[in-house]
């Protein structure tokens, strides 16, 4: 190993350390920005080191330079534009797109390596190459479908057909079986078949998954991308890629587990099950018992004379894009000396932590955003719990065995002294069961779109206290 190689390897290790440190600094909102900067520096150093390798080797052709620079500039421009213009509500789609291109690039590294290797002797590197290609291709097509579903371009309801599961298994078998065969006898044609099968598997894996399960799917695809990048690292023998890929794989894995637990579903159940209601609110008969519907004025009286209000935002708030309206109401209540905090369930929104970003965008200070375990003991002291577009995560039935959501972690909304629920209809959440909270005598229902309802309540409170 030459001195140059040594220096480059050490630089890569330094970059990888920056990634770890950057992620470590994200354990607190106050230091998170610095974490991102540290991580960015690591990345710039790693790219510079790679450029140094290319220049040092004198191996690249003029065409090679042109292709590389043109591609990178085009990609960087597209990435910069989408990152600057994306709406915070559309964050899950963008993250999905980045998963797609990351997985796609990793797959291409593998494809190129396989094709340029020719008659290779080492079968172990071929294993990692094929894993890279297969995982990368599955991530690419799967993430594109997920992004399409989130954007509403593709039907977000589970799309399935009889025998879908068999097709799925068949595609996976083709990709893996042929892949194994390719280790022994290289063939570009068969590699194409493997790629097509892997791409088709990505599509058929995500299509049957409903919109409500998207937080889990995005996390899982994120883990896939990380693994694909790590495999690409094995292929080109680059430690920075291996470490970065492993970090992302771990992150995606942890988030997948957290999301699945918070939704009371096993990962296998989500991938194989293919249910979940998606965006549509089913108009089904409400639970037995009296539902107490109220108007904006009644809600305003309860809110204006409370001393502690806990806001419980859910998927409905994100769907109605009402984060600014809820922040305006909260500001008004705070100006009257009322203690306001937000109870955020882990699966509120469309991806892990999505609700926090939406509320941060609406200028809600992050100390007001409380995680489930932190806020649950406080509900008993709250005068009003204002539930906006959240359903299953507030259903006390989860505490009893024998229901569809038994064992699911919920917010203890029912312990508040009074409860106001803003909801478009008595429709079910994705678990498809009645919410016992709605027939609780302490609960008042306000039937409206979240955005409209919050604006009405805010003006009603203003009129009341003027």
């Amino acid at each position, binding site marked *: 190993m030459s001195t140059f190689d040594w220096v480059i390897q050490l630089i890569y290790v330094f970059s990888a350390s920056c*990634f*770890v440190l950057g*992620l*470590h600094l994200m*354990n607190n*909102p*106050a230091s*998170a*920005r610095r974490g*991102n900067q540290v*991580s960015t520096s690591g990345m710039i150093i*790693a*790219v510079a080191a790679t450029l140094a*390798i290319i220049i040092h080797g004198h191996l690249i052709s003029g065409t090679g330079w042109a*292709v*590389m620079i*043109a*591609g*990178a500039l085009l*990609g960087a421009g*597209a*990435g910069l534009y989408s*990152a600057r213009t994306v709406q915070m509500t559309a*964050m899950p789609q963008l*993250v999905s797109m980045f998963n797609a291109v*990351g997985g*796609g*690039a*990793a797959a*291409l*590294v593998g494809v*190129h390596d396989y*094709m340029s290797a020719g008659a290779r002797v080492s079968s172990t590197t071929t294993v*990692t190459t094929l894993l890279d290609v297969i995982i990368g291709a599955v991530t690419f097509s799967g993430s594109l479908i997920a992004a399409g579903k989130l954007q509403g371009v593709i039907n977000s309801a589970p799309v399935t057909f009889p025998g879908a599961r068999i097709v799925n298994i068949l595609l996976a078998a083709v990709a893996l079986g042929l892949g194994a065969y390719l280790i022994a006898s290289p063939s570009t044609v068969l590699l194409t078949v493997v790629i097509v099968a892997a791409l088709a598997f990505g599509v058929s894996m995500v299509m049957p998954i409903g919109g409500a399960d998207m937080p889990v799917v995005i*996390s899982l695809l994120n883990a896939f*991308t990380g693994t694909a*990048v790590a495999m690409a*690292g094995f*292929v080109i023998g680059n430690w*920075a890629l*291996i*470490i*970065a*890929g*492993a*970090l*992302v794989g*771990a*992150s*995606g*894995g942890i988030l997948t587990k957290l999301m699945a637990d918070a939704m009371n579903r096993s990962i296998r159940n989500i991938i194989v099950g293919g249910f979940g209601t998606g965006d549509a609110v089913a108009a089904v008969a409400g639970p037995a018992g009296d539902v107490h519907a109220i108007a904006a004025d009644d809600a305003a009286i309860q809110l204006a004379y409370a001393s502690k209000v806990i806001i419980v935002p859910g998927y409905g708030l994100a769907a109605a894009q009402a984060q600014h309206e809820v922040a305006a109401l909260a*500001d008004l209540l705070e100006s009257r000396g009322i203690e306001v905090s937000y109870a*955020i369930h*882990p699966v509120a929104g469309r991806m892990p*932590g999505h609700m*926090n*970003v939406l509320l*941060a965008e609406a*200028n809600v200070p992050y100390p007001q955003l409380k*995680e489930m375990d932190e806020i649950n003991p406080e509900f008993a002291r709250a005068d009003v719990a204002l539930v906006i577009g959240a359903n299953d995560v507030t259903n006390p039935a989860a505490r009893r065995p024998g229901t569809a959501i038994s064992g699911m972690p919920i917010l203890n909304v029912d312990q508040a002294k009074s409860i106001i629920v803003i909801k478009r209809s008595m429709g079910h959440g994705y678990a498809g069961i009645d919410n016992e909270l709605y027939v609780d005598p302490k609960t008042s229902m306000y039937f409206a779109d979240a955005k409209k309802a919050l604006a009405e309540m805010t003006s009603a409170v203003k009129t009341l206290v003027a």
Partner: protein
Amino acid sequence: MYPALLVDVTIFVLALWVGFEVISKVPATLHTPLMSAANSIHGIVLAGAMLIAVTANNAVGYVIAFIAAAFAAANVVGGYVVTGRMLKMFKRRPAVPPAGAAAPAVTAAANGSSQKGHNA
């Protein structure tokens, strides 16, 4: 038997454990920026994409190199920019505290109405 591969596998497994350890400490509040940050980190695949351009020697190779470079660059640049944009929004208190700003307004309104009462 393949000592280089063994080293790679060791690094991979240890990095996975480091990842689990570091990331399990990230609060749920930051999970979206975390995933976005992880996204930008896997943009390191750009290094791999750049190296394709070195060994490419035919049209197919150059097309692959071009697409890979574009994908990876979009990933890495977009990822870091959007993560930064999100993290900038997380504030302990907004620049103009709404409580402080709104409170005088309410008092003013109350004074106004009481004055009106006097006038009547």
